[in-house]
């Protein structure tokens, strides 16, 4: 028994350690020094502390960049360039979320709010580097429990409490499904590491030979399906998104989605690499691509159609993100290196655009008196800059060139067409995706019509703090840049994703 190299572990997890310490500092600072101060001062002070901590946590990450692939604690946590890159994405999302929160009324418990937000970021970062079932489950729970607390943070508002109860119930049941599935996977393969599971799966003779493994796979996908909110496991999402304080909604819709999709990609592409089956038209075979193709179909249809009838902007964005999860699943169904790349690219674009959209909604709705569509009437006159940003984010979500969303969707669909290109096996999914994108344009344009065309009764200009304008402006710039010039990121992903797709048959 070799002793555990604790020092190496601390060094490898430097970013997480710094974030945890920052969270504790934020709690102490709020309790010890600024509790009596005015609310805006408290929020600014603690928020700035959180931002400084988040930026400091990138230092160890930069240091590890371009290093060799490293595993900690017997393969439970891994470190390579792809993982570090996505940890940086999580930090960026958390920084913007903190900036949005500083401008938002989060209630009396300011220190606790930012501390829990940082704990959530730690959970997401651990989730991204986890490569073993126990670690995956623990990190997923750390993320989820933090988000349940944040959802309930609007103590005065009934919507927030209801949303928290629903989110918590659905989250807990998804954890139960996931754990039950993982227990069967562990039982059949006798392993908890993803790589070891892949090796063991090859010896079991596949799903047909082992009903236990098939059940495990099904339950695992159901568990993750709840976390990423795809139909038919989406019921919590609209309520949780609408009821939660808007910065928290932004965090749930982006940070936790990025981390969940990343780990789902790893579990499917590494752990279950031998079990993909086939979703080709006329040639279906049981396996996870089949399941994913079905949920993708349902998500795209139901998400887009339900979004059309919404009157609340947050709820509309919730249904749109259910539909977006459906598009992302197309890349997973392709189950190739290109599919993995397109998924990774799209979750970045999706997260940035959604974060920006919710950020604008947070900034404007708190000043316009609500987050219904009518509250945004004539917003282009009242807040021209943020309205312009909203235009960029929403059009990117709809997939209009030259924005990031267009290229991301194109890449996703292209990866599915290239798979089984002779027989156009996945073309049915792509055609459905394109048709549903056209449907989605309708409700995105309705939102823009409220902002740009309809005149509101209130004409007074809305002034938002400069730091928020700059932060959201940078997000919009990134969305545009990813669409106009995606090459650097694509090359980056192409070089990195070897570790994820190693187990797949190309």
């Amino acid at each position: 028994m070799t002793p555990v190299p604790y020092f190496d572990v601390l060094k490898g997890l430097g970013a997480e350690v710094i974030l945890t310490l920052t969270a504790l500092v934020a709690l102490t600072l709020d309790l010890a020094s600024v509790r009596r101060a005015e609310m805006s001062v408290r929020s600014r002070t603690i928020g700035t502390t959180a931002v400084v901590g988040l930026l400091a946590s990138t230092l160890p990450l930069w240091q590890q960049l371009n290093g060799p692939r490293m595993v900690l604690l017997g393969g439970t946590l891994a470190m390579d360039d792809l993982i570090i890159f996505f940890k940086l994405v999580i930090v960026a999302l958390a920084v913007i979320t903190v900036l949005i929160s500083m401008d938002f009324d989060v209630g009396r418990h300011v220190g606790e709010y930012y501390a829990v937000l940082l704990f959530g970021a730690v959970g997401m970062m651990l989730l991204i580097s986890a490569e073993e079932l126990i670690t995956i489950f623990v990190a997923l729970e750390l993320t989820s429990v933090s988000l349940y607390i944040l959802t309930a943070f609007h103590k005065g508002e009934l919507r927030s409490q209801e949303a928290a109860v629903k989110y918590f119930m659905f989250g807990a049941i998804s954890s139960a499904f996931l754990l039950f599935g993982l227990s069967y996977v562990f039982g059949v393969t006798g392993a908890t590491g993803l790589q070891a599971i892949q090796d063991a799966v090859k010896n079991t003779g596949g799903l047909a030979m082992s009903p236990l493994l098939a059940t495990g796979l099904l339950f695992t996908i159901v568990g993750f399906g709840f976390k990423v909110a795809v139909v038919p496991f989406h019921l919590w999402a609209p309520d949780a998104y609408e009821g939660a304080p808007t910065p928290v909604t932004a965090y749930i819709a982006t940070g936790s989605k990025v981390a969940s999709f990343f780990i789902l990609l790893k579990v499917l592409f590494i752990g279950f690499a031998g079990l993909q089956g086939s979703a080709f038209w006329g040639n279906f075979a049981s396996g996870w691509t089949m399941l994913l193709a079905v949920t993708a179909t349902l998500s795209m249809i139901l998400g887009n159609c339900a979004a059309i009838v919404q009157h609340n902007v947050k709820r509309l964005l919730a249904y749109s993100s259910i539909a977006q999860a459906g598009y992302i699943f197309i890349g997973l169904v392709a189950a190739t290196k290109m599919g993995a790349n397109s998924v990774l690219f799209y979750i970045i674009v999706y997260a940035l655009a959604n974060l920006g959209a919710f950020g604008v909604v947070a900034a404007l709705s708190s000043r316009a008196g609500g987050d219904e569509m009518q509250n945004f009437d004539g917003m282009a006159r009242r807040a021209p800059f943020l309205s312009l940003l909203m235009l960029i984010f929403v059009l990117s979500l709809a997939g209009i060139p030259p924005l990031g969303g267009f290229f991301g969707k194109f890449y996703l669909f292209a990866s599915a067409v290239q798979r089984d290109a002779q027989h156009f096996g996945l073309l049915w999914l792509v055609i459905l995706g394109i048709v549903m994108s056209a449907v989605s344009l309708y409700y995105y344009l309705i939102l823009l019509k409220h902002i740009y065309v309809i005149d509101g009764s209130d004409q007074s200009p809305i002034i938002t703090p400069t730091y928020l304008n700059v932060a959201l402006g940078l997000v919009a710039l990134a969305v545009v840049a990813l669409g106009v010039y995606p090459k650097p990121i694509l090359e980056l992903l192409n070089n990195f994703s070897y570790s994820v797709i190693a187990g797949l048959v190309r």
Partner: protein
Amino acid sequence: MTSAITLNDYLIVSGLLFALGIAGVIIRRNALVIYMALEMNLNAANLALIAFSKFNKLVEGQILVFFVIAIAAAEVAVGLAIIVALYRRKQTISVDQLTTMRL
């Protein structure tokens, strides 16, 4: 005469527990009772994990169970707090009444 308990027996019990838990979640209307049913689901998974660990002579499953017990305790703390906060606002914890947000 000695009929040892096999892995399958454990798995059947764990499957039944899980099914009971899901049935409880679907049928009951009280948030607290639903939450108890959810705990039963977690324990069904725990039982399966321990059984697999014992019969495969592996320790990882039992380690995971320890983590699950700790996590379940943390979830209880958060979950009960959320339910209490809801009760303060609404004076009921029946999930049928959670209808502020629709469609």
